[in-house]
């Protein structure tokens, strides 16, 4: 940045002063963010995830400042599973645009509901609301209620990077115009436990594929139960045959279910 002193043009002065002010503002915000971050998580550049997901993610967790996209059929449960360990460790989570969230399922997936907030219907100001949340909340799940413009998406990605939060986008019907750091895609969902009027849902077997940029360029895949029989993400059992807990053939029609 040029030194405004001695410049004959007052307009140039103003521009330089403004630039200096901006730079200072940015620095002080960053320092402030460093200072106010709690001890427990400030040291961790990467927020924890359950082991199954750690194996898929390039850095073994959610890198602060990164943006992820979670897509494929039934992505909300996977987004919640990504938050679970950090939430249990005290991080705040927000869910924007996830309409009609099932709180019991979200709780069972491991989120601390005391530090999880829902903005189910943000309306047209969804991007502004998300930006505010990224300022103070570690993990923000966003399903844009309207197709996001490129500039909006870029702004939010930049905000997450600047504030060292994690933005997890569930695009839903619309396309997220920015390439994410990591993309998790659910594939081959298979529900088990129900037949023709028998049993009850025991879980969903899925393949999760992780792709990304740079270190995450090579795709990694794994299979798990999401949800498993107990409602959480369950890594495959040794037999690989079914979710833990009683499997379907142990049940009979006498089991009181409702």
């Amino acid at each position: 940045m040029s030194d405004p002193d001695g410049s004959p043009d007052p307009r140039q002065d103003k521009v330089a002063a403004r630039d200096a002010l901006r730079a200072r503002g940015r620095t002080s915000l960053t320092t402030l963010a460093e200072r106010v971050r709690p001890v427990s998580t400030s040291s961790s550049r990467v927020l924890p995830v359950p082991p199954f997901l750690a194996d898929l993610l390039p850095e073994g967790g959610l890198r602060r400042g990164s943006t992820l996209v979670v897509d494929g059929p039934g992505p909300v449960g996977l987004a919640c599973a990504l938050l679970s360990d950090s939430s249990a460790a005290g991080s705040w989570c927000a869910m924007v645009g996830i309409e009609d969230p099932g709180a019991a399922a979200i709780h069972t997936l491991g989120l601390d509901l005391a530090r999880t907030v829902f903005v189910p219907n943000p309306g047209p100001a969804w991007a502004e609301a998300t930006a505010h949340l990224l300022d103070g909340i570690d993990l923000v799940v966003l399903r844009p209620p309207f197709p996001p413009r490129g500039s909006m998406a870029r702004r939010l990605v930049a905000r997450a990077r600047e504030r060292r939060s994690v933005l997890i986008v569930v695009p839903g019907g619309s396309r997220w115009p920015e390439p994410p750091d990591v993309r998790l895609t659910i594939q081959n969902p298979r529900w088990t436990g129900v037949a023709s009027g028998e049993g009850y849902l025991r879980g969903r077997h899925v393949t999760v594929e992780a792709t990304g940029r740079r270190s995450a360029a090579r795709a990694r895949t794994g299979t798990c139960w999401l949800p498993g029989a107990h409602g959480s993400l369950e890594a495959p059992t040794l037999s690989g045959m079914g979710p833990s807990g009683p499997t379907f053939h142990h049940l009979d029609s006498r089991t009181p279910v409702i």
Partner: protein
Amino acid sequence: MDRLLVVRCPELRDDDEGGATRRRFATVLDALGFYCPWVTPHELGLCSLPARGPARYFGGEEALVSLVTDVVSALTPVEVGIADGLFAATLAARGGLIVPAGETPEFLAPWPIAMLGDDDLADLLGRLGLHTLGAFARLPEADVLGRFGSDGIRGHQVARGARGDLLEMALRPSDTTRSPEAIQIGFWGGVSETDARATRALGQVQAELGAEAVLVARLQGGRGPADQARFVTWTDKEHTRTSAPVAPWPGHIPPPAPITVYATPRPVRLLDPDGQPVTVTRSGLLGTPPASLFDTTHPVLAWAGPWPVDERWWTRQRRRGVRIQVVVDVDAHLLVGGADGWAIEATYA
């Protein structure tokens, strides 16, 4: 249990070498004794008197509270409250409250278990996910006795409002905060900076979208997915509360729980192999098996049920209903059906 009026003098709680605090407290007791002969001192700066007789004499509990407040506040700052039993009345005094007769259990419910003064018990219960007196009170007494012994039972009875004499407990925290929330903050060592940052961010979202746009979930018992949680507007007090443990509810739908629970069930067409609507018989069975959802291009790949629905909200509107689970395309749904047709109540992923 006795209606008790508790007088708490925050500035006279700590003894001093010269005995000035004791002398000042003695003048408080003297002043009160002038109006009521049964004043009982419990600790420095804290005394009680039976409320029923004096309240009748002085024209009601409110009149009694304002009289006592006037008398004592001429000598020292004072907090006065009335409730059933000494424990609750002491807490009531902190907030200057009159807890109506019989409502002590509700009044006690939101306070932290640590108020009982038994740190070990509070710690143990906290690890079980129980943080409030109300949550503790809901444990069956037999379980408490088996797990925590007679001390646990004493605390449990106090938490339930069944006895009120665990005095030493309510006295210990010497702060002068006035609400359960505020006291909790003191207890858990202050609001963390993480919470403060989140609070600022959420405040900005509320300024942008309206307070009611930001919600938190509370779990509660219930059979249907919509009954298992309720959403309330987030406030900056909310983060000090913890959600109740998921109560096992007789007859609830087995896990996994659905990730999407529609606030209002969405009407939908459920068709049999002939493309006709699936009916529910009077005895709660399906007239024909389900074959497709929405229209015939979305076949039902698997289904389970029916299970009878007997929630109140349902019986208000319909005489008989059933639930079924269906797998359609890549999704699994919970449907409710009855004489008026079918609706999607929840979606599993």
